[in-house]
């Protein structure tokens, strides 16, 4: 579904070809030359010679451009001012150009948020590389979202150490999480810094609560009709400014659109993120014992999902899970493919999981761990089978749930898919189930595979196991996180699903690849991980499971968003239902 009105997919897998560039320069000669150069790079070029005109174009078509190149000296508006506007309103990477290469000018450009400063005369080879800025921003955005989500789900993701500290979900081992946390924080800061407007203002910390208010407001208004003012009014947060909301809305939109795009093009991208799942981390974080193995295949992905699920599970499946989990726990261990307790994906990988997962779900950590478990367990090959997309979907859904909480669409997904797959058995959380379901459905392989593979290698049974336990600890935290996740899970009917998941863990395992040892049971009761839900759901459950009756907090989570990725799942019958639900909720 189109996340945002006016959103046009810039490019497909041929990235960076088709990159949509907006060139602003009052010099017609340069405008002509740049246009030709960019066209030769296979980019989609739009030119304009006035800054105001450029802003109009950008405002008209939000998400209609990927990058802006602007001259510093323009008659109607200072190039730096334009830079600020673009950064604040559209959050696009902006490259400055000038014939003047004085250090002070360049510094000013960078201070105002330019991601690069080119000196005229510009060579074509310099333009060829501008896509890196778009790419980098994407990564950072994902991390930002994660950090945002992390804030909310702090407790959840942290493997057990100080997840909560900065609210960043850091999956995987402590080091990883700490790192992630720091990264998330930095990202957050960096983002602020890069946005000229934000540097001047006190940084707003978008806590889970705040974000939920935001999402609630957005949903009330109707996603297509939102505007910062309306949202601000509805949110009724006195200290919040319209600008804060505007920039957050922008991020949110980008996040959603990224989710949208993730499924198709992000695979590779995401894979990158998770390439090296930190086995350590995952294991540690979850502490899932053998049961985690089940998830191993998808560990990297799943972990994130898992954690997410956990979070969700908590909210949703409080009742159901308990029972299920127990049931599941027993299952997984034995089910594990290689009796790999929990292959904790490479710390690196786990981290990646975390990244996506955490951020979005806040429980990334847990999710990642879980994923690691999965990944390790399942043979690498099994992973490939697991539809990565599902995972992605899961992740996405999670993301949608809490915008913050959901793992990054791209990376997240991968995590999830993996996670989900084996996760069938794991009913870690509602979200997970969903994820599983979606991941299996979508089959976002590319990323997932890569991701999983990484995880597999690194995951060690013990680690995997750890992942799980961590979740438990975070449960309390997760609960919060779950809320948003529950949205996704709701579709999954976490509670019910989890139950199913649990019972179907084995089933899932069989189906999935190796199933994920359902560590859920082992997970502390609180964790109502509906992880399985997603997976189980895909496998055993029909549409019915999908309806997340348990969903507690639909308001916050943009269902439709969450659902969007799921649509891809062929066999997810309920996806339709889900989407319907989402639609309704969202609208």
């Amino acid at each position: 579904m189109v996340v945002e009105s006016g959103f046009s997919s810039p490019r497909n897998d041929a990235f960076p070809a088709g990159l949509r560039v907006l060139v602003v320069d009052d010099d017609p000669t340069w405008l002509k030359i740049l246009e030709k150069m960019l066209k030769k790079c296979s980019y989609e070029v739009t030119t304009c010679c006035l800054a105001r005109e450029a802003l109009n174009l950008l405002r008209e078509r939000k998400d209609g451009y990927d990058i802006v190149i602007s001259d510093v000296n323009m008659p109607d508006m200072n190039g730096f001012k334009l830079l600020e506007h673009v950064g604040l309103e559209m959050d696009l990477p902006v490259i400055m150009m000038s014939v003047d290469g004085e250090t002070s000018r360049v510094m000013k450009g960078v201070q105002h948020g330019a991601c690069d400063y080119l000196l005229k005369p510009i060579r074509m080879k310099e333009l060829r590389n501008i896509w890196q800025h778009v790419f980098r921003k994407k990564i950072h955005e994902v991390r930002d979202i994660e950090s945002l989500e992390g804030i909310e789900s702090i407790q959840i993701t942290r493997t057990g150490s100080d997840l909560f500290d900065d609210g960043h979900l850091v999956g995987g081992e402590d080091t990883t999480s700490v790192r992630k946390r720091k990264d998330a924080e930095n990202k957050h800061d960096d983002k602020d810094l890069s946005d000229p407007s934000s540097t001047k203002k006190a940084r707003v910390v978008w806590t889970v609560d705040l974000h939920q208010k935001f999402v609630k407001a957005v949903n009330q208004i109707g996603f297509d009709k939102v505007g910062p003012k309306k949202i601000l009014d509805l949110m009724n947060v006195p200290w919040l400014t319209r600008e804060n909301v505007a920039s957050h809305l922008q991020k949110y939109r980008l996040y959603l659109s990224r989710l949208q795009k993730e499924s198709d093009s992000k695979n590779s991208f995401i894979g990158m993120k998770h390439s090296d799942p930190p086995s350590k981390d995952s294991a540690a974080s979850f502490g899932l014992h053998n049961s985690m193995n089940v998830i191993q295949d998808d560990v990297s992905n799943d972990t994130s999902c898992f954690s997410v699920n956990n979070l969700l599970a908590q909210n949703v499946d409080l009742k159901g899970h308990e029972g299920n989990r127990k049931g599941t726990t027993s299952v997984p261990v034995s089910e594990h493919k290689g009796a790999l307790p929990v292959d904790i994906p490479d710390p690196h990988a786990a981290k990646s999981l975390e990244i996506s997962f955490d951020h979005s779900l806040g429980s990334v950590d847990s999710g990642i761990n879980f994923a690691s478990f999965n990944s390790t367990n399942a043979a690498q090959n099994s992973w490939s089978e697991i539809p990565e997309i599902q995972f992605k979907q899961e992740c996405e859904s999670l993301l949608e749930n809490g915008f913050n909480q959901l793992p990054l669409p791209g990376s997240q997904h991968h995590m999830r898919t993996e996670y989900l797959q084996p996760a069938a058995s794991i009913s870690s959380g509602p979200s997970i189930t969903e994820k599983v379901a979606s991941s299996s459905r979508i089959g976002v392989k590319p990323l997932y595979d890569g991701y999983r593979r990484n995880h597999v290698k690194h995951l060690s049974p013990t680690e995997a196991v750890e992942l799980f336990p961590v979740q438990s600890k975070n449960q309390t935290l997760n609960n919060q996180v779950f809320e948003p996740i529950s949205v996704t899970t709701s579709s999954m009917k976490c509670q019910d699903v989890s139950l199913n998941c649990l019972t179907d863990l084995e089933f899932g395992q069989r189906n999935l690849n190796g199933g994920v040892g359902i560590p859920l049971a082992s997970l502390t009761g609180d964790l109502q991980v509906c992880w399985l839900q997603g997976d189980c759901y895909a496998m055993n459950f029909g549409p019915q499971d999908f309806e997340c009756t348990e969903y507690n907090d639909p308001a916050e989570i943009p269902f439709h968003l969450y659902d969007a990725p799921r649509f891809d799942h062929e066999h997810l019958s309920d996806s339709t239902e889900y989407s319907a639900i989402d639609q309704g909720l969202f609208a």
Partner: protein
Amino acid sequence: MERNPMGRQLAIMRQSLFDQGYLDEQFIQLEELQDDANPNFVEEVVTLYYRDSARLILNIEQALERKPFDFNKLDDYMHQFKGSSSSIGAKKVKAESTLFREYCKSGNGEGCTRTFQQLKKEYATLRKKLEAYFQMARQAGPMETACRPK
């Protein structure tokens, strides 16, 4: 290009523009951009440059007539002009622009006036040479359009 005497002549003409410092690397960049979709790209760009820069030259001239000199404004104009000149690789013209801006920064009105005269001369010379070059290119035939010897 060597087979055709006209082509050879064109090549010689082109090379001398570089050797004598009238044009720099940027001109070659333009040549490389020329393709089937834009077979006269270089000439179009040069034409656009001369049309647009004429306006800037006029602005500077008018500013130089107002005493005392508004060096900031002069510097601004020249900044624009320099940027424009860099687009086609007008090397000598660019050098004069840089000099002019330095005089502006140091508030040397006499230096500005002097440099500007020199700049206009170079600007005019380059224009004549390029016009002759493009004319020759057209005569030499489509195969002989300025393109970097492979």
